[in-house]
């Protein structure tokens, strides 16, 4: 069976034009997808059933037993952490936030090690953005800053920017200027019209200098800023000011570098400055396919996009304090539920060590690094393959992912719903 217009649950591009062929509960072919999509759909490396660590070995357990034990672990904890969420659908995320509220837990999503600093910056200065189609149809200048879309978001350039023909830009490749700004040469910088090589840690100064130039205070700028020549800074500022519609996309090169949120803030303020001259937008290259959805769901329920601490009943938010890496490295939490992500692989080692120390439960379709650190793992269906639900694209456009076949695994929503019910019953509310 061929399914058309399939939504890809890999990266924040959330491409929805895939054609997937399914046979006997197995994907046998994918059209239109990138390498990442092909691997995701064709992958067949699921954990077969729930497993439980007993001493130095693993035993199979039933779903019911695993769910019951998870509820008990969470109820016993004085400072539980519920982490992950970006790899599942919104409906499951919503149960997660309500579970956290019921438990008095800290709940956090993968933004915490991705675009968390971008959120902090947006909270300081706002976010002049747009949907991706606005860029595709209008933009004549594209800037990628600290981002390498060819590796991380392989179809971003062909669907939305460099190679995407639009209503007002009929021949994108010819009519669009692409600027790549990065500390290293990448596949993406190779296709740019202008590559700006910034010294490591130099982004903030370069952004400040560009702002000053756009404000007409360029006389002050020395011959080199953050490894970039004054000439090139002026040239880039000129290209931007003369754009009809400019769009900046930034990645972890800004969020993870020294200055963190302040780099992003500076980039947003540059965008605001450019809007006094022309039309400019800025957008984070969100990583997980539904990380933006976790921010949205967290926000409409709790008021905050990530790092929410319900210990005191009310929602408290303070990244740097209530973020997962901080809660783990300080050894604060005494239980952890990981849903749809792999902190064992993606958090600094000290955090992984704490996860191994406390009762950690993982809800995930695959065996991953966190599996080794957990006490229990409950396998679930993969949203977008054998489960469906809502996802938010990197620009906030919500799309419903499809279930391609009726599989045997329960969805995240079903498992979390059962845990929630048990916790609610125990809490007597």
């Amino acid at each position: 069976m061929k399914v058309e217009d399939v939504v890809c649950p890999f990266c924040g591009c959330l491409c929805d034009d895939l054609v997937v062929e399914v046979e006997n509960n197995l994907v046998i072919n994918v059209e239109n997808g990138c390498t990442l999509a092909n691997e995701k759909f064709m992958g067949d490396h699921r954990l077969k059933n729930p497993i439980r660590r007993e001493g130095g070995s693993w035993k199979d357990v039933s779903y019911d037993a695993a769910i019951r034990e998870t509820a008990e672990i969470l109820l016993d904890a004085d400072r539980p952490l519920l982490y992950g969420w970006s790899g599942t659908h919104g409906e499951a995320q919503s149960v997660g936030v309500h579970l956290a509220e019921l438990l008095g837990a800290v709940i956090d999503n993968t933004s915490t090690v991705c675009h968390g600093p971008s959120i902090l910056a947006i909270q300081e200065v706002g976010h002049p953005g747009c949907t991706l189609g606005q860029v595709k149809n209008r933009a004549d200048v594209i800037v990628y800053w600290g981002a390498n879309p060819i590796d991380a978001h392989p179809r971003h350039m062909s669907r939305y920017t460099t190679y995407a023909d639009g209503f007002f830009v009929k021949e994108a490749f010819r009519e669009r200027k692409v600027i790549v700004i990065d500390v290293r040469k990448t596949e993406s910088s190779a296709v740019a019209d202008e590559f700006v090589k910034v010294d490591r840690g130099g982004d903030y100064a370069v952004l400040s200098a560009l702002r000053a130039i756009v404000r007409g205070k360029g006389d002050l700028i020395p011959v080199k800023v953050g490894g970039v020549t004054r000439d090139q800074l002026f040239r880039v500022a000129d290209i931007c000011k003369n754009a009809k519609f400019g769009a900046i996309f930034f990645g972890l090169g800004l969020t993870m570098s020294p200055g963190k949120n302040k780099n992003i803030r500076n980039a947003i303020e540059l965008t605001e400055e450019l809007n006094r001259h022309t039309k400019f937008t800025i957008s984070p290259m969100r990583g997980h396919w539904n990380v933006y959805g976790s921010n949205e769901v967290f926000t409409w329920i709790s008021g905050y996009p990530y790092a929410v601490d319900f210990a005191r009943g009310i929602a408290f938010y303070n990244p740097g304090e209530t973020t997962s890496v901080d809660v783990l490295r300080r050894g604060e939490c005494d239980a952890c539920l990981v849903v749809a992500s792999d902190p064992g692989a993606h958090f600094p080692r000290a955090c992984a060590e704490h996860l191994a120390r406390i009762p950690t439960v993982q809800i995930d379709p695959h065996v991953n690094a966190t599996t080794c650190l957990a006490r229990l793992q409950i396998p679930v269906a993969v949203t977008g393959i054998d489960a469906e639900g809502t996802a938010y694209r990197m620009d906030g456009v919500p799309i419903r992912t499809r279930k391609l076949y009726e599989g045997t695994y329960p969805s995240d929503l079903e498992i979390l719903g059962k845990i929630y019910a048990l916790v609610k019953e125990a809490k007597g509310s």
Partner: protein
Amino acid sequence: MRFVLNTGRTIRQGSYVERKNSPVYREEAASLYMNRVDMLDLEIEEGSHVRVKSDQGAVVMVAHPADGLVRGDVFVCLGPYANFLVNPETHGTGMPDFKTTVVTIEPTTDPVPTVRELMEQCGGVGYEG
């Protein structure tokens, strides 16, 4: 020799991210990319094992040359190998310094650990299944 470790996504890392126990994932996640001249200075070749050390610990990886990197910079895709070295300090932002870890690199003949072995060093128990 002293280097600064940068991390980020690669298409191979993304491709194998749901198969962390696989040799292909290990091959990519344990690949250390560096400037060719730095490799000459270290007297290593493509495929040589190197011990990479930071204030957090040490891990053995496989060196590869990369043209996009300036001298002194090295790159490893995000994953458990890089994270063996990254300091969990977040500067009050929640975000560790994933892109600026100071490391030293020396040649070694020690084997590259598996993901499972790394996690066992963190106190975990591997699962084969």
